[in-house]
Each structure stands twice: as C-alpha cells, then as structure tokens.
C-alpha cells in the first residue's frame, strides 16, 4: 500500500460501515463502491469459478477504451470549433478554435453523462447492482456520433433510451443484446430526423461576424456523394467539394462530432489492439468486408446507376462513420459474438451491409450504425451455432 493510498483507504474504511447491510445509507452502496473504485484499486475477491489471476477487470478494460477514445474526442472538439469559427468568419487560431469547440461539445457530453448517470444510479440503487464503468464509455461514445447542433434535450432523450431500454432492462452492463450507445443514436435518428440529418445540422455557429445567419449549411462527404450525378466519378466530385482522400483521412471536414477523422480512429484502434482490449478479428473482418463489397459494386458500376457504385473501395473506409463504428462499437465485447470464426463473419457482414446501405439505399446516407445494430441481432445466433458446430466436431471421450 503506497503512502498516497493510505489516507484514502482510511477514509473509505471509516465510511464503509454506513453503507454495509444494516447501515444507515445501505441503499446508496452502489455510489460508495463506485467512488471507492474510482480512487482505489478494487480488491474484491471473486466468489465463482473460474479463478484466473489477472488484474484486467471491467474498470481497467473500460479505462483503456476511454483512453483510446481520446484522439477522436479531442480532434472532434477542435474540428467542431474550427468549422464553427470558419463559417462565421472569425479567426481560426488554435486556442480560440479549441475553446469554441469546448463550448459547443462539452454541454453535449455533460448532458449525456449527467442524464445517463442519473438512470444508471437509479437502477443501481433500486436493483442493488454496482454502478458500472461501462457507462463511462457509452456516455462518451454517444455524443461523438451526434451532429454538433443537436439540441440538448434530444441528447437527454437519446441517452435515456439507450441506458434504460438498451441496457438496464436487461440487468445492466454485460447483459444487454444491443450496444446502448448505438441504440440511443438509432432512437434519436428515427425520432428526430430533422435534427439528425440534412445540410444544416453539421456546423454549430454561435456568434457571427458580419453577415449573421443562424444555421450555416454544408454538405458532408456522404451528402456530396449521394447527390453526385450517376455518371460522375465520385473521387472527382469529392475533390471538387474539397474532399481529397487526404482530407477525408485526417478528417478536417464537417460531420458528426467525433466521426470525421479516420486517422484518429487508427490511433485508437492501435491502442485497443496493442492492449488486447478489442478483437482484431472484428476490425480486420470489417475492413475486408468493406473492401470486398466495394469491389463487388465496382463490377456492377454502370452509367445509369448511382455514382457510389464506381468509387475506389478505399474511400469507403475513410468516409462517414465506418472507422468509428468498426473500431469502437463493433468491437463491444458484450454485443459482439464471443467465438473466433463468428467474429470474422460478424465484422465482415458489418462492413458489407454498411457499404450496401451507402450504395443502394437512398433513404439513409450512412448505414454503419444500423449495420452494427442489425448484426447485434444475429450475434447470439452466430455464437450459438459456432459453439454447437465445435461440440459436434469434438472427438467424443472414449
């Protein structure tokens, strides 16, 4: 026990009796535990088999995911601020841009965390389960998928749906079937389509110099692509609108707060893969799925079909929310299948379906979010089937 740790340990040990069974604040035990594990390393011995000696617990697991989320989060703040100031004709030096971004993004994140924590805490107190760190990831993933102009009450409505219906009705972290952040995102996407898509939601302008307008319109790469003439080469159309491959890769363009930069996702992916938190099978499967489906559509490309058909498949990887979805959401260990072959198939189908929706479904500009939700539906089935097949293949004990 370190010297710094000791006084903290003493404070918690003194308070503990109040929260134990029979104590005065027994019902608030989940909050006590949450605060304690925030400051001190949990030393709770597990009661059930299997006993594996490893300090990788849910807390460290989720902390690494949070660390991996920092690059897109910080870049998202900068990017949002940059486009807000740029559109209103203000100076775009780094500090003021970052400050502007903070003013726009932080309220969204705070509402997401605050409202989410309220529901998580309510269920924890009433149902007597611990407050889980998984919520910290959900509460940050969700705002990063939103457009910067989203009204705060919609953030609250979305995270409420995601936490309560997506997770808590199943009994909390680890028991849900659908990714809570995606459930929340899909819910507000269908409930409030006006604020979630279109040309006017991507740039959050607070103050304007000179010509004052409330909302500035701007087309995201996906919107540009969807509007492209059937005969056009999308690469050229992108370049005309200022979206070169490089811009798309580094992500300095308008879009959802945290989803624009494939480069930041790459950093996040490396963190997750190096620490073994996320499954490389799902990510690799997803990338292969996108490239394969993209190539397949290239074969069918014809002058009278949408321009998306003929695009270089590599562009699919860097546009829209694909990189974000496959790195942070598809690899969610709870809702992805747990068996190895299924992970490849799961990732591959997410990539494939996402490209399919982009190319042939005119109703949605982007399909990654729903593709992952769709595959969440079948993940228990894939897991079950693979387990059964393995059991059948096993040589019986003679």
């Amino acid at each position, binding site marked *: 026990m370190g010297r710094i740790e000791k006084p903290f340990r003493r404070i918690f040990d003194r308070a503990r009796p109040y929260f134990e069974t029979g104590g005065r604040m027994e019902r608030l035990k989940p909050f006590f535990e949450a605060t304690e594990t925030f400051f001190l390393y949990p030393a709770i011995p597990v009661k059930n088999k299997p006993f594996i000696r490893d300090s990788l617990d849910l807390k460290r697991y989720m902390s690494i995911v949070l660390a991996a989320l920092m690059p897109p989060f910080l870049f998202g703040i900068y990017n949002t601020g940059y486009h807000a100031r740029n559109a209103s004709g203000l100076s775009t030096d780094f500090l003021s841009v970052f400050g502007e971004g903070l003013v726009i993004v932080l309220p969204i994140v705070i509402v997401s965390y605050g409202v989410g924590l309220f529901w998580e805490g309510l269920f924890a107190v009433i149902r007597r389960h611990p407050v889980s760190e998984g919520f910290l990831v959900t509460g940050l993933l969700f705002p990063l998928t939103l457009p910067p102009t989203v009204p705060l009450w919609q953030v609250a409505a979305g995270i409420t749906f995601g936490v309560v*219906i997506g997770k808590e009705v*199943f009994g909390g972290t680890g028991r849900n079937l659908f990714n809570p952040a995606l459930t929340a995102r*899909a819910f507000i996407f269908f409930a409030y389509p006006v604020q979630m898509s279109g040309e006017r939601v991507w740039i959050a302008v607070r103050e304007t110099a000179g010509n004052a307008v409330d909302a500035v319109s701007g087309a995201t790469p996906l919107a540009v692509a969807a509007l492209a003439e059937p005969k056009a080469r999308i690469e050229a159309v992108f370049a005309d609108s200022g979206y070169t491959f490089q811009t798309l890769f580094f992500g300095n363009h308008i879009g959802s707060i945290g989803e624009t930069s494939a480069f930041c996702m790459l950093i996040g992916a490396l963190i997750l893969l190096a620490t073994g938190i996320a499954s490389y099978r799902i990510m690799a499967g997803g990338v292969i799925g996108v490239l394969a489906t993209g190539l397949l559509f290239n074969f069918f490309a014809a002058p009278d079909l949408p321009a998306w058909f003929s695009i270089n498949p590599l562009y699919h990887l860097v546009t829209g929310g694909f990189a974000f979805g496959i790195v942070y959401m598809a690899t969610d260990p709870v809702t992805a299948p747990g068996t190895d072959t299924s992970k490849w198939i799961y990732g591959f189908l997410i990539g494939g379906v996402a490209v399919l*929706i982009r190319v042939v479904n005119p109703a949605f500009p982007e399909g990654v979010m*729903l593709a992952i939700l769709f595959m969440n*539906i079948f993940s228990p089935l894939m897991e079950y089937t693979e387990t059964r097949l393995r059991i059948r293949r096993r040589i019986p004990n003679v």
Partner: protein
Amino acid sequence: MVELVSLFLNSVFAGNILLAYFLGMCSFVAISKNLNTAIGLGFAVVFVLTVTTPVNWLIFHYLLAPGALAWAGIGDVNLSFLRLIVFISVIAAMVQALEMLIDRFSASLYAGLGIFLPLIAVNCAILGGSLFMVEREYTFIESVVFGFGAGVGWMLAIVAMAAARIKMRYADLPYGLDGFAITMIVTGLMAMGFMLFSGISL
C-alpha cells in the same frame, strides 16, 4: 428474374412480415423460448406460407375477384366479400395436412410445437400473406416468391430471437419483465435494426 429476386429480398428484410408489419407475434413470442422448436415452427410457417399464398391466389383470381367467374359464364358476380372466410379455410386445411405429416415423420417436433401447430391456422402472418398478395396485386409467380420470402423472413426473426433468448438466460431482468415483456422489447429493438433496409429498391 431481377424483380423476383428483389421481391424475395424485400419480403425477407425490408418488408419483414414480423418485424415490419408485426404479424404472427403470438406464436413468435411463445415459441422462441426454445431454439429447436423455433426452427421447426419456422420451417412449418415457410411451408404453409409458400403453399397457401399461391393456392389463395388461384382461388381469388378464378373464383372470388370481381369478374373472376367469367370462365363459368357468370362474369358479373363479385364474391370477394368471401375472401377472409375462404382464405382461412384454405389455411386451416393446409395446416391439418402439415400436422399429419409432422406427426408421421418427427414425433419430437410434433410434441415440441404442441398447440401452436394447429394455431398456425390462425397465425396472422399466414392470413396476412394472402391478404397482402391480393392488396399488392401480385402475379401468380410473384405470389409464390412472396409467400416463400415472407416465411423465410418470419423464420429468420424467430430463430434470431430464440438465440437471443438463450443469451438472455444470463440477463438479470427486473421483476415483471421476464418472459413476454422483455421479448416484446427485444422485438422492438430488432425491428429498429431491420429498418436498415427500408427504402432499398433494386
């Protein structure tokens, strides 16, 4: 040919008879408790839908529709008000035949399906298939493809749900949500996932 493939995919995914139209919920909720029984009932529904939709097409277009009896010389008769009752009788007869077949060839499936096999006769998905066929003015071939596709879509949904319920055995459900309630919630979330395909036209 392309139109038929498109119709098939449409009836499996975008227009999934269970997750987009919420038909056939009762047996879906009740039978999805067990994966093997769910697969069995899924096949039964595929079979019954594939057979009854075209048979009802023939009956509707040669007996019931306005002017359908022209071949018998009474072209001005319109019997389409008999549609519901005739469709139901055809479905009931088909289900009876299927029940005898299952009883003969798979005793375990027969026992597993229990009361729900005769209840296919009043499964709204089956009748819905026939009514959609009339409403959307399918041709005969289309009605076969549509019936098959609707059945496959229903089966896909119930099998996915049965597997999800196996996983949910480890869930810690709030009191009162166990069983039907959580199944309805999951069905709603599944329907949200299936909205992915709405809007696709090949």
